[in-house]
């Protein structure tokens, strides 16, 4: 969370942490960060954020999911634990830990034409991959063609962490395009 907050501060955007349903009121967009998707799922149910968040996303709230956040936005999960649920929003299947364990985690640069300019710095940490894209636009790929970013209207999901490697252009694009677009 903190690394996302630092990027938002760098971009001059005010922000707050969402832990309870009341924190959702009045926000213009939400970032679902990395972590363990199965844990975020459980905590969102225990602290009753799940249902209000699903309604907000369905109602057009702009959302950016990174890593575990992508898993939580996908309609189906490959390699989910028993009983694991998602918020949904992206009509894709996402495979958890698709690259393997931590020793397979890596840094690289990826192509992201929606942003333009040079390739985007990215850290993949026990990262998921997008395996089956249905009604979504592909916005980021690895050089071998593996899909690591998709958008569907107000929902954007990416496999990687731009916030860990000093890359603010993904956030800037999401704010300028998806968040500002929703306000027009």
């Amino acid at each position, binding site marked *: 969370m903190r690394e996302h907050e630092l990027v938002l501060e760098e971009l001059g955007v005010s922000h707050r942490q969402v832990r309870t349903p009341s924190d959702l009121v009045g926000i213009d967009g939400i970032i679902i960060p990395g972590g363990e998707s199965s*844990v975020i799922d459980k905590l969102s149910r225990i602290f009753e954020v799940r249902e209000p968040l699903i309604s907000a996303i369905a109602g057009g709230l702009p959302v950016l999911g990174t890593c575990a956040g992508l898993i939580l936005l996908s309609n189906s999960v490959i390699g989910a634990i028993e009983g694991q649920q998602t918020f949904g929003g992206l009509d894709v299947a996402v495979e958890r830990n698709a690259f393997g364990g931590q*020793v397979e985690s890596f840094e690289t640069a990826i192509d992201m034409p929606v942003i333009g300019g040079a390739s985007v710095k990215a850290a993949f940490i026990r990262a998921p991959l997008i395996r089956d894209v249905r009604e979504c636009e592909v916005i980021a790929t690895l*050089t071998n063609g593996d899909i690591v970013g998709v958008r569907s209207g107000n929902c954007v999901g990416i496999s990687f962490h731009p916030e860990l490697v000093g890359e603010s252009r993904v956030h800037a694009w999401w704010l300028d395009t998806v968040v500002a677009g929703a306000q027009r």
Partner: protein
Amino acid sequence: MAEKTVGTPLVKSGLAEMLKGGVIMDVVNAEQAKIAEDAGAVAVMALERVPADIRSQGGVARMSDPDLIDQIIATVSIPVMAKARIGHFVEAQVLQSLGVDYIDESEVLSPADYVNHIDKWPFTVPFVCGATNLGEALRRITEGASMIRSKGEAGTGDVSEATKHIRTIRGEIAALSAKSEDELYVAAKELQAPLELVRQVARDKKLPVVLFVAGGVATPADAAMMMQLGADGVFVGSGVFKSGNPVERAKAIVKATTAYTDAKVIADVSRGLGEAMVGINVSDLPAPHRLSERGW
């Protein structure tokens, strides 16, 4: 540069960043690992015996059997950490080859080298190390640790040492950041840590890696207290599986760690948990049996 680079400092410390706010639980087999995952642990720590058993049974404590680690990795989808003895770089090589996600170079096991810790830089897998004070934390970071946990006194259920160590580390960081630039040379000498790292901590007012708390956490309130004292997350060792109701206690500790400022939530999750682990007061432990004094 579209190449993939593994094992970079960012990738190593990045996983620890993703564990922040969470609970990491000690497990000795796949069944316990499943209970921990179902309760909402962000990672599990594989070891041969939990610290309370190491204490009561005595003898040399070592890395787990690779079969057990394989079974735990096959059972859960959350990160799996495993303990190696201080200085035992071959146990660390073995654990890396097994594909664990993090290695804990741990004073809970019997040290293999009383002079040197493991040189952690050549490894692809990241390391977490224990520390009782800022100098110790910075020395471990200098050797390549990507995450620090305060030591506490493992296997006791007595949280007082954990409290002391997190307060010490946080207090020393605050004192360091109040110093002027020309005082940092002596500070580095006293901390026995490199000047550049000392300058960085003084400037940022925090360690350059994630700081968890470990050792003696037995109740939801213990975990929440460590979070309020400034921990990024909590390790729970014997506290879960040496208690009367591990399933409910594990869930309760996860909830309290998440809602650590909400006394009402902590009260609710603390109800009807059954027996906490039988504790040992650290002051009753003869000095040679204090695990937190291992490592330097």
